[in-house]
């Protein structure tokens, strides 16, 4: 993984010192709430329902075990002994005290971590495919480009006070596991006719109140133009993005109002007109950063049938919680943070430390965070899988449900977030209870549930096969259900099935929806495929039919 040099370390240390001073001035009454807000937000600090919330950056989801242990330490020392991994691969602490935050940041800086620009109207953490570097279908490892973008966007003088937040994702695989098409900029690695690496550039995707799939602004962007072109996009956005209405301030609204053709024209003109001063990316720097992401010292091994002759429970775990690796003899292993009766994405300090120990022994000392709020040990030898499973099982991190309905995404919801209209955690719990039978879950196969507690959409409900959106109805928590959303290589927004339902009806409604799928599916069709074939109508017809017992 990337290791800081003296420049990287100095940038982070400078920012810690600056934030310590800003916090001191706020606590001394020298800065008002309004003045402190944009300063703390640019350092990942929200004021939440119960306490400040600190969002710590995990750049493109890659953690060393040293970093993971430091997160465990920080969560134990300054919080309640657990943290919450988010859909953008970061870690949130929900109970730190404001006065301790500069100390937390100083601890993080000792292991090359920070909370810079994890919130606020600036360029956020750049995210990537969690299978980067090990996926068989990958054209090139996206992480060096993520790291370059991370550096370029960090405290970028021109683009730190944008109209609204700005999210970039990079994918190197056709199966877009980074959901890049619902980002402000989505970069798909491409090769040109000569085999040179570059990017297909998507712009203006996003979720929230106005969900939009990104559009192509440039079919092929040479690698060395990456920073200059991103500057052109951001400059057009910084100048002409709306600042009068927070709900219309994302770049997607600008792209939509101009139309992609006019937006492209403006970006290309800006790009051409800034050639002599735009930030350059030379191949020497690319090679320097690429050098940190070279393949591990894998052993020469054969693939084995690791599940052969093992108990059914291990076979299920092997099937659902591990993935094919491009190197024979290895597999990628999910550390499941979706145990039933458990808040999606939550992990205790003890679990973090145990996962770090396991990764040191079995996965080259690295752990990844995933867009789906799990962790991944990307490089586990197949002959170690059984022992790894036993350890994860003992830690409560081996629920064999990855990719199934209960591997759901949920934002923290009303229990923690001051923006939320409705709770998500109770509903998640009810769904997990309703679908507690693993055989039934396996029969349902791949189904993605994504749930948000408000229309800001942090739980990505628009792109869930089944989306759940919490709404406030006269002070009560109700839930709107959408079907047919997806992002992995076939981006679509979900369709609302009808009126929202009260909290306790969400899980039974989902049960009725998946029963339609079970009745109508053909030859191994996945839920989303049946939905695309038969449309929303049959689901609508059944979703609200109460069983006689329930009525």
């Amino acid at each position, binding site marked *: 993984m990337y290791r800081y040099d003296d420049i990287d370390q100095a*940038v982070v240390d400078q920012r810690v010192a*600056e934030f310590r001073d800003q916090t001191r001035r706020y606590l001394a009454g020298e800065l008002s709430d309004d003045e402190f807000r944009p300063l703390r937000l640019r350092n990942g600090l929200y004021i939440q329902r119960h306490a400040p919330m600190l969002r710590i950056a995990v750049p493109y989801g890659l953690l060393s075990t040293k970093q993971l242990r430091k997160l465990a330490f920080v969560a134990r020392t300054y919080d309640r002994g657990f943290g919450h991994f988010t859909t953008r691969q970061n870690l949130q602490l929900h109970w730190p005290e404001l006065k301790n935050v500069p100390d937390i940041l100083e601890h993080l800086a000792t292991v090359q971590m920070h909370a810079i620009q994890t919130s606020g109207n600036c360029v956020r953490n750049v995210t990537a495919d969690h299978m980067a570097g090990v996926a068989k279908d990958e054209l090139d490892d996206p992480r060096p480009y993520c790291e370059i973008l991370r550096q370029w966007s*960090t405290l970028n003088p021109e*683009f*730190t*006070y944008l109209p609204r937040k700005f999210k970039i994702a990079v994918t190197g695989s056709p199966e877009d596991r980074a959901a890049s098409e619902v980002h402000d900029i989505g970069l798909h690695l491409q090769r040109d006719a000569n085999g040179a690496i570059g990017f297909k550039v998507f712009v203006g995707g996003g979720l929230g109140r106005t969900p939009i799939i990104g559009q192509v602004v440039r079919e092929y962007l040479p690698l060395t133009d990456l920073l200059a072109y991103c500057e052109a996009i951001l400059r057009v956005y910084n*100048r002409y993005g709306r600042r009068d209405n927070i709900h219309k301030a994302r770049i997607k609204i600008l792209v939509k109002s101009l139309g992609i053709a006019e937006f492209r024209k403006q970006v290309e003109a800006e790009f051409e007109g800034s050639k002599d001063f*735009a930030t350059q990316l030379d191949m020497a*720097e690319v090679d320097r950063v690429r050098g940190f992401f070279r393949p591990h010292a894998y052993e020469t091994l054969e693939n084995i049938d690791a599940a052969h002759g093992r108990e059914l429970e291990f076979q299920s775990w092997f099937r659902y919680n591990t993935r094919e690796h491009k190197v024979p003899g290895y597999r990628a292993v999910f550390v499941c943070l979706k145990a039933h009766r458990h808040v999606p994405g939550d992990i205790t300090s003890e679990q973090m430390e145990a996962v770090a120990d396991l990764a040191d022994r079995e996965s080259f000392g690295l752990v990844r965070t995933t867009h789906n709020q799990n962790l991944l040990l990307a490089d586990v030898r197949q002959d170690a899988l059984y022992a790894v499973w036993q350890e994860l099982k003992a830690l409560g991190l081996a629920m064999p449900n990855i990719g199934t309905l209960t591997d759901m995404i949920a934002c923290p919801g009303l229990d923690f977030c001051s923006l939320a209209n409705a709770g998500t955690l109770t509903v998640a719990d009810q769904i997990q209870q309703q679908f507690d039978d693993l055989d039934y879950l396996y029969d349902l196969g791949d189904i993605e549930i994504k749930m948000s507690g408000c229309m800001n959409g942090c739980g990505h409900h628009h792109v869930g096969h089944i989306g759940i959106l919490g709404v406030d109805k006269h002070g009560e928590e109700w839930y709107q259900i959408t079907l047919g959303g997806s992002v992995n290589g076939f981006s679509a927004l979900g369709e609302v099935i009808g009126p929202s339902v009260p909290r306790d009806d969400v899980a039974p409604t989902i049960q009725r929806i998946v029963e339609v799928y079970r009745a109508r599916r053909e030859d191994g069709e996945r839920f989303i495929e049946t939905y695309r074939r038969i449309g929303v109508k049959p689901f609508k017809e059944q979703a609200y039919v109460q069983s006689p017992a329930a009525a």
Partner: protein
Amino acid sequence: MSRVLRRHEFVDDDWVSLGEQPPAEGAVVIVPFARFREQADGWRAWKGPLGVRLSPPDRVEDLAADLACFSLVALEFTGPGEGRGYTQAKLLRKRYKFAGELRAVGHVKQDQLYLMSRCGIDSFALSSTENPEEALATLQRFKVAYTPGAPIPSLTRERFHG
């Protein structure tokens, strides 16, 4: 006379903003860009030093042809989240090679000075609540930067080049 932080020194502000009354001939005056455009020919014939004030939506392209008339461009920051002035500054310095004084006015707090400086702003009419010594110190805090920008004395290294 108010004070302004200009090229790392606090100095008396020798500029006056255009008020309702026409200025005395040869006065050192900052004219809002909209007022300049209303009577452009008159202002182009102005004898004394002339400054112009851009509000956030003003396009630097519209000013470019007259840039030689001005020895100062003031960029207005209307609130804590306003960020268009950073791009205006960058374009004035880099695309239009403006070499005169580039001044931040309006909501100008010590926490913005570093980023503003890197975009090429070299003078600051600080908000009245700001502590001048603290403000000056913020320009000493940063020793390295990732992206290229206008030089400031404390800053010795950059990762990327322009």
